[in-house]
């Protein structure tokens, strides 16, 4: 098992190189001279030249990349022009809220998708099923910033239960304040997982082993939960994994809407201030985050499917 995880980590190396290259090349997309862009149009040529040297722009591209990677390896993302502090510290302070938000969203997503998916599959083509399916179509059809708006309108303004914005201090307070943001993401994400779960449950329920289970005389509940669900859960987790990128992307919008002091908000603020190194760092960190969460879902599938488990052991 450990060997498997190690090998799986090894496979991430090319992806990691790819990610760093993309992030590195990102700032090369800036039209014109980055040094001048950073310093503004009033800078003297000497100042621009000094800035170019400081940024390493006078060296060949590959050398710049190596320097970039070396700095990264040392945890050095450079300095923020706007905040005037080390970007690594900035990122660290903003990482916490984003991580809590992501985990919270996944939990809420599963809390919605699992029971609804089971209900829809068990009551196929009945009212409950139709209701769940309509809910799912509407759910994915709602843009997150608008869900956020409606939730604020309903549960923060009209009925003031939750705060309009903020993050609070201490975990209970985090969870309370982040409920609406996490729910916003879950409303978007749960339909995808729910659809996948319903489809894979349907497929499972039509399989031969369900006939066998029923022919054994098992009660319906046992057939559904004991035989269909264990086979159907893996595809649903896969869909969740495929949408991790979507989930992390949504945090950028949701953090902006609810003023959550996370990486997304940091990124959007830095765009306003043209703080390119910060944008670069956040892009990198969020990319790495997606890769790691994907790794986690892979391992989760491993735990859920005994066939794979045995293959690996």
């Amino acid at each position: 098992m450990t060997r498997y995880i190690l090998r799986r980590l090894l496979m991430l190396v090319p992806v990691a190189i790819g990610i760093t290259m993309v992030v590195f090349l990102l700032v090369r997309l800036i039209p014109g001279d980055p040094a001048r862009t950073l310093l503004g149009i009033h800078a003297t040529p000497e100042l621009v030249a000094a800035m170019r040297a400081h940024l390493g722009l006078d060296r060949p591209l590959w050398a710049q990349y190596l320097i970039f990677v070396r700095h990264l390896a040392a945890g050095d993302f450079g300095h923020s022009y706007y905040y005037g502090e080390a970007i690594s510290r900035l990122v660290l302070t903003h990482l916490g809220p984003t991580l809590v938000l992501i985990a919270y969203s996944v939990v809420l997503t599963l809390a919605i998708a699992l029971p609804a998916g089971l209900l829809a599959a068990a009551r196929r083509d009945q009212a409950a099923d139709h209701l769940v399916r309509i809910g799912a179509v509407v759910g994915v059809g709602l843009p997150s910033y608008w869900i956020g708006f409606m939730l604020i309108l309903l549960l923060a303004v009209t009925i003031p239960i939750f705060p309009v914005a903020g993050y609070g201090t201490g975990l209970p307070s985090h969870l309370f304040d982040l409920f609406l943001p996490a729910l916003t993401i879950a409303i978007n994400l749960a339909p995808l997982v729910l659809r996948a779960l319903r489809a894979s449950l349907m497929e499972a329920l039509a399989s031969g082993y369900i006939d066998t289970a029923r022919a054994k005389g098992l009660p319906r509940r046992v057939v559904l939960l004991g035989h269909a669900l264990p086979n159907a859960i893996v595809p649903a987790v896969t869909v969740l994994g495929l949408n991790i990128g979507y989930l992390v992307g949504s945090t950028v919008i949701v953090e902006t809407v609810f003023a959550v002091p996370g990486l997304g908000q940091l990124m959007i603020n830095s765009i306003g201030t043209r703080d390119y190194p910060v944008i670069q760092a956040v892009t990198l960190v969020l990319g790495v985050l997606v890769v790691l969460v994907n790794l986690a879902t892979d391992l989760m599938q491993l735990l859920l499917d005994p066939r794979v488990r045995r293959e690996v052991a």
Partner: protein
Amino acid sequence: MNDAAMIEASPLLALEGVGVTRTADGASLVEDVAFTLGAGESFGIVGESGSGKSTTVRAIIGLLPEGLHASGRVHFSGENIAGMEEARLARLRGAGIGMVFQDPLSALNPVMLVGRQIAEALRWHGKLDPAARRRRTIEVMRLVGLPEPERLAASYPHELSGGQRQRVALAIALACSPRLLLADEPTTALDVTIQDQILRLLDELRRSLGMALVLVTHDLGVIAQICERVAVMYAGRIVEEAPVARLFSAPAHPYTRMLLDSIPQGPRALHPLAPIPGRPPDPALRPPGCGFAPRCPRASGACTERSPPWRALGTGGGFACLHPVIAEAVAHV
């Protein structure tokens, strides 16, 4: 068939006027099926795809696919189990009536240990404690000829061979010692030599356990090997029923005769096949009258007007045809 005598002997299983319709378009897949089965007897149902043979056995224990609806009466041990509520029927399944299916790989839950799949039936039919369940699991695995049952019990289905999987499926069906086993094309997915093993096993088990067997197949050879009586289905109806020897030596229904003539018996030069022209009708577009009439060389105008009545034969069984192949068959009526 002597109905009064059969009822007095109280058959293990008796179907009366069983029909299956598709809810979506009202097409009738199975019509007016009736047969009886004594304890320990082996009964074959043979037919081509679409004849309704699998649908019929599934209807017996209420395992019809979504969208199909059964009617008629199914007596098991004297009790009408057709239309019984799901929970009561579930108690009967496995315990009184076991079933095995065509594809042994898909019939087993891929993510559950084989031993647990066998023991599970015991658990829900409730009598045994865990240790006894485990003993019975190993015992029934031995019964179906699985080598090293202790080791195999801790395997997943994909780790077994095709023949072993079908033996496991059989073990699941037999765990609670049912008095009737329904087998739906149990050897079709297997290689010939493995099919031979499983057929012999089924026959042995039926004899040693005194269990009745309903075997559904498209292969008349399989019927000849292990069934005592046989029903031939065509277009949703039983067109002929007979003791197995009579079916092969003196079939009464033209379809049975022509089906036998479609099986290769040697080189073409010596035994040319006379195929039945055309193909079976779509269940939704079945012609009125005898379903076989459009393909039947003996058909007359009367055949297309109404379904031919069932004519019982003194030698057992009967047929539904106005123009049977053998004149003597009619003489016996």
